[in-house]
């Protein structure tokens, strides 16, 4: 029977040059699907406890979903994971574009890289033929020229490239992995892991169409998206027309725009950098990911005497508009677009970079950076020069950039005093550009996400299911539709209950990894800044209480079948999810349920939340 799951994981050991194929079996894929669940499996199984994230023993895992690479809008997603050099915990980030689909079309459901090459190398994957090649001539170069050079060298303009920029080479703890020049696996410092392995790039070319079991639901859904959802009033109209970032004005009025290191909720002229202004001033055209008719990707072109921005590096998404824009006090669209281009060619995560610079600006403003030779004039909120200069310094670890390349939490711990109090992070990951003081989604998300301050919902069901199936979060497919597409692609007759169980399994594996690496329940919280009132706007009298977060977290543990105090999975939860305590060496991080469940009761709470989005 045709199926989109190919039962092939490509394994590469860069220390000894060994390349092999692993076939985990269809039952493995059915119980884990793809994305972060597969990543959690490899991290927990193969990385020795307490290893340094930049040690060759770390695994860099690229995981497709079962629907990645099929002809369906939103199916161009893949995930990358490793132990994070930024947080020391579960590291994972998701990207779109074409690279993941290309790898799937080359016949691979995943790629796991271990070891470290003696000198810089790149991987060349052409269908089932895989080579480790010399990349010394590429080391030190920014992403655009590397992609050109690889395509030239490999004699194929359609080769898709995932790569690191200078930031990854220099082990900046929030370096990202850039694919297709404008898509990134941005969070948790995966580019530094790639750099630590001396791996500059992964070039891929696949020549096979990904098979599916039943084409009809997939074709029907693709037609529905392109014919019925893109016009005025349609569910993808806003994204199709402006992409992300159209809601800056809403946040501004409501008073929770991310401004000045999460201190202020409003900023004069903020709409000068929203998506609508961008459309009018700098967007050259909208682009798409693999097979997607929504086309929500902005391509910016600026060609003035003062500023030039190349559209091949895309354009800033909302996160970037806020991170290096409003959060640093900047409302100059040209500067933000230039900053976005720099982040993409240097290979830096825009959220962590912007948040770290904003934190440093507050430190300089309040005199806490005097030892670093910085004051409120030399590193100032609202200074475009400060931001652009600092992006470059961080990527090359020049001057104070070397300190900031460690991430805001480590940098604060290095400078000491009360600097840590001003770091807006969860588990060491800088918080994304949505304020939990105003957004319930984020209150439910940030404290318990296994990666830390990420906004994409790794700890919540709807978003986790999409990540592991391989579907874009922006596509308005409800849970039933996601399941229908999964079954159509794979030929499985998975039930909602079985799908729910894969979500619980992945989350519990990631939890166990984090507990094993030293995380405690005390890390499932928000930083001090987010319990302070916002300084400007309608929310100035609103305080998010610590007890509200604590109660939410305890309830979340309980729903998962983890103990309420420490969030350690109960042994009956592990048994139900077929997670082997001995195999994973996790006995110290489990718990016995004090009140055994009645026979037939599930150890976690089932939910069938179809309220988000809709199908046809």
């Amino acid at each position: 029977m045709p199926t989109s799951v190919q039962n092939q994981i490509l394994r590469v050991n860069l220390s000894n040059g060994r390349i092999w194929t692993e076939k985990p079996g269809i039952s493995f894929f059915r119980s884990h699907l793809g994305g972060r669940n597969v990543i959690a499996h490899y991290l927990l199984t193969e990385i020795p406890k307490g290893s340094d994230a930049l040690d060759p023993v770390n695994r860099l895992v690229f995981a497709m979903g079962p629907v990645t690479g099929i002809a369906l809008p939103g199916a161009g997603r893949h995930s990358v994971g490793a132990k994070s050099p930024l947080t020391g915990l579960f590291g994972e980030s998701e990207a779109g574009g074409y690279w993941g689909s290309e790898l799937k079309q080359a016949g691979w459901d995943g790629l796991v890289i271990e070891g470290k090459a003696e000198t810089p190398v790149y991987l060349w994957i052409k269908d089932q033929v895989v080579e480790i090649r010399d990349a010394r001539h590429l080391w030190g170069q920014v992403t655009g020229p590397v992609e050109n050079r690889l395509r030239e060298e490999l004699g194929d303009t359609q080769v898709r490239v995932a790569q690191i920029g200078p930031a990854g080479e220099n082990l900046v703890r929030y370096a990202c992995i850039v694919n297709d020049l404008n898509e990134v696996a941005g969070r948790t410092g995966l580019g530094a892991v790639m750099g630590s392995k001396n791996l500059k790039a992964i070039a891929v070319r696949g020549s096979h169409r990904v098979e599916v079991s039943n084409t009809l639901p997939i074709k029907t859904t693709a037609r529905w998206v392109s014919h019925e959802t893109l016009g005025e009033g349609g569910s993808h109209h806003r994204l199709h027309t402006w992409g992300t970032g159209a809601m800056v004005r809403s946040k501004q009025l409501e008073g929770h725009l991310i401004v000045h290191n999460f201190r202020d909720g409003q900023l004069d002229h903020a709409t000068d950098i929203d998506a609508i202004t961008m459309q009018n001033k700098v967007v050259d055209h909208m682009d798409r990911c693999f097979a997607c008719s929504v086309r929500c990707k902005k391509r910016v072109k600026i060609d003035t005497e003062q500023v030039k921005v190349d559209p091949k590096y895309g354009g800033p998404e909302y996160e970037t508009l806020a991170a290096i824009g409003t959060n640093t006090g900047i409302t100059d669209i040209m500067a933000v677009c230039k900053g976005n281009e720099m982040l993409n060619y240097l290979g830096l995560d825009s959220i962590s970079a912007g948040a770290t610079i904003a934190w440093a600006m507050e430190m300089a403003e309040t005199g806490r950076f005097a030892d670093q030779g910085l004051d409120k004039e030399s590193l100032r909120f609202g200074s475009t020069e400060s931001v652009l200069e600092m992006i470059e310094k961080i990527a090359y670890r020049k001057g104070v950039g070397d300190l900031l390349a460690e991430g805001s939490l480590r940098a604060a711990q290095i400078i000491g005093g009360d600097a840590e109090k001003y770091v807006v992070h969860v588990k060491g990951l800088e918080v994304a550009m949505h304020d939990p003081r105003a957004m319930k989604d984020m209150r439910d998300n940030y404290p318990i996400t296994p990666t830390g301050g990420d906004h994409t919902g790794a700890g919540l069901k709807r978003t986790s299911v999409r990540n592991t199936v391989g579907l874009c979060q922006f596509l308005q497919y409800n849970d039933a539709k996601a399941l229908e597409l999964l079954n159509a692609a794979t030929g499985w007759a998975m039930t909602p209950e079985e799908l729910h169980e894969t979500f619980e399994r992945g989350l519990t594996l990631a939890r166990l990894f984090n507990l094993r690496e030293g995380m405690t329940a005390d890390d499932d919280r928000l930083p001090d800044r987010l319990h302070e009132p916002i300084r400007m706007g309608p929310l100035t009298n609103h305080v998010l209480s610590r007890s509200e977060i604590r109660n939410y977290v305890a309830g979340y543990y309980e729903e998962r079948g983890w103990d309420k105090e420490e969030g350690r999975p109960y042994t009956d939860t592990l048994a139900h999810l077929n997670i082997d305590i001995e195999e994973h060496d996790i006995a110290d991080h489990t718990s016995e349920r004090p009140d055994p469940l009645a026979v037939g009761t599930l150890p976690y709470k089932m939910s069938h939340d179809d309220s988000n989005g809709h199908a046809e």
Partner: protein
Amino acid sequence: MRIRIRPYADFGRFFSAEPGQTCVVSIEEGATVGDLLEAHGIEASVRVTLGVNNQLAARETQLKDGDNLEVLAPMSGGSTQ
């Protein structure tokens, strides 16, 4: 009285205006923001964020001649885009 409206997101279609661009509508004296929205087909059940003269407003906010009204999709408590 005449009210200048700037609709965002998909709200332009209720006022025959391009999103982010402005248009001017007339409504009788004493009308609230809610009255104006309902007159243009935006029912009370539709969640909106409203601004009058650059300040956060509500459906109950009283309008006066020459006011600038913004109609947007809400973000507080909302999605991640």
